[in-house]
């Protein structure tokens, strides 16, 4: 009985914290005016916001007497896939020149996104 009460309260607190971080992520998405800075908001929501919501789900399943571990897997897949999509959105931003042009790399010729398939050197 005691454990169930504690788990229910803990689930409630995690829900509050998680939704708070999701709300901050949405505010960031609306507030920033540059595509690159706007990209920062959703990558943050994906980590702590969703993590706390999944923790709440695990805790409430524990309180209901039916422990669940699916959430760990959701978390793992999220951690693996979120950086990949963020990376691709950043590449599109660079390619479309929606952002400040990045400085050229110190040792190599250019960034792989800006490299043209032709043999001619990049104009930058």
């Amino acid at each position: 009985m005691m454990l169930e009460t504690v788990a229910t309260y803990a689930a409630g607190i995690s829900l509050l914290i998680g939704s708070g971080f999701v709300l901050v992520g949405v505010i960031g998405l609306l507030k920033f005016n540059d595509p690159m800075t706007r990209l920062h908001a959703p990558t943050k929501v994906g980590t702590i916001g969703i993590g706390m919501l999944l923790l709440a789900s695990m805790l409430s399943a524990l309180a209901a007497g039916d422990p669940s571990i699916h959430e760990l897997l959701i978390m793992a897949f999220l951690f693996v896939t979120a950086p990949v999509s963020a990376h691709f959105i950043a590449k599109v931003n660079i390619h479309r020149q929606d952002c400040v042009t990045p400085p050229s790399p110190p040792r190599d010729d250019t960034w792989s996104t800006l490299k043209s398939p032709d043999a001619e050197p990049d104009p930058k």
Partner: protein
Amino acid sequence: MSRAIRWLMPHPLLTLILAVVWVLLQNDVTAGMVVFGIILGILIPWGTSIWWPDTPQGFRMGKMVSYSVIVIWDIIVANIQVAWIVLTVPNSKLKPEWIVVPLELKQPEAITMLAGTITLTPGTVSADLSDEGHSLLVHVLHTDDPDGARDEIKSRYERRLLEIFA
């Protein structure tokens, strides 16, 4: 004997991960499911080993665990910092910055892990790799000291990854 094991399990870690994922997917830890997970964990890497020519050599599991703990802690701390920046710093005062991180890591797996860590840590997004793979382009949301941010990435994450993939 060791050659037989090597032939059966070209990627022991992948076998372990697949077995754990299978058990988690079933949401039910029973002996039958564990055995079936191990069977899948042996069959899938064996069937796809032709697409995995280079096993990462010398992967240190113990160091990887402590690295994961540090990264999760950093994610929590930096999330709060970024939430604070989102709520309090107006757009006109925001100082987004590109930083270039010269890489000492050589293996593609290690560079992928560094880029993933940088993106998961709030406030930084890894945006691009240079054409020869010697530098990583990182976008920082708000910083007064771009060089310090670069040095922190190098000393905090890259140094540890160099030890893991030694």
